[in-house]
């Protein structure tokens, strides 16, 4: 059944039962987008300013996690349920497509993290430090 039909068709009982907002639904209410953006900014700021390479990667992780929250917020349907088909007739499912995209994005994120950390380890081996300022100093001395 189409989402549109469901609500337009006046399945009022279901709609009202949904209005008994569950706690977790309440927690994820309208200001999601804003909060995701704030988190994104914090992550971005950490990545740009911190000199420690591991901290940069953690900042990048925050940035990406906030991005995941944004995507999932896009796909959320009020009073919807987990997009696994049930026998319950007329169940309203959240949009599964952003979930799929974010699964892929999470994998890309962890792959980047692993590679970045491996690079940080090698940099520590070569320079004896993972502070960007000190590495830049060492490089300036080199050339």
């Amino acid at each position: 059944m189409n989402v549109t039909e469901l609500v337009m068709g006046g399945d009022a009982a279901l709609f009202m039962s949904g209005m008994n907002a569950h706690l977790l639904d309440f927690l994820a209410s309208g200001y999601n987008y804003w909060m995701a953006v704030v988190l994104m900014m914090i992550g971005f700021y950490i990545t740009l300013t911190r000199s420690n390479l591991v901290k940069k990667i953690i900042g990048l992780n925050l940035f990406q996690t906030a991005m995941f929250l944004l995507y999932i917020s896009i796909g959320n349907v009020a009073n919807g349920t987990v997009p696994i088909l049930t026998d319950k007739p007329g169940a309203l499912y959240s949009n599964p497509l952003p979930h799929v995209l974010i699964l892929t994005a999470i994998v890309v994120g962890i792959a980047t993290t692993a590679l970045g950390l491996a690079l940080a380890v090698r940099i520590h081996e070569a320079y004896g430090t993972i502070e960007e300022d000190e590495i830049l100093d060492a490089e300036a001395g080199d050339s």
Partner: protein
Amino acid sequence: MQHHLVLRVIAKLLFAPILLFAFYVQFHGDFGPGGGFQAGLIFASAFVLHGLLFDVSSARQFLPDRLLQVGAAVGVLLYAGTGLASVLLGGNFLDYDHLAEAPTSGQHLGIILVEAGVGITVACVVVMVFRAFADHLPCLREQDW
């Protein structure tokens, strides 16, 4: 970790149930949350736990590094090979409808195959990466601690 008897016993006891849980997530992915990727992670976490409590070198005896590398490649090959198989059977790439007589059973077969590919690759790569990091002796000195 010679002296943490409790931990070592628990780890040994948990090893098989974790693998079982991984298989459950792998094959129950069609019905509940989970799938190849998550199952691969759980598989890997069993080996990571083992590597944490026993030395990585002992784990190498039954799971050599070369095998992990080959496993990671085999997973990708399994996935892409499923795609290629559907091309050879007359469909488009990754069109599982052509893998069996009925389209839906073809889809089932295709999904199981590709999820298996995902699981194998993820498990192998995660264990591989864990070992790459865990292999080196620490270079932290006591005073940095």
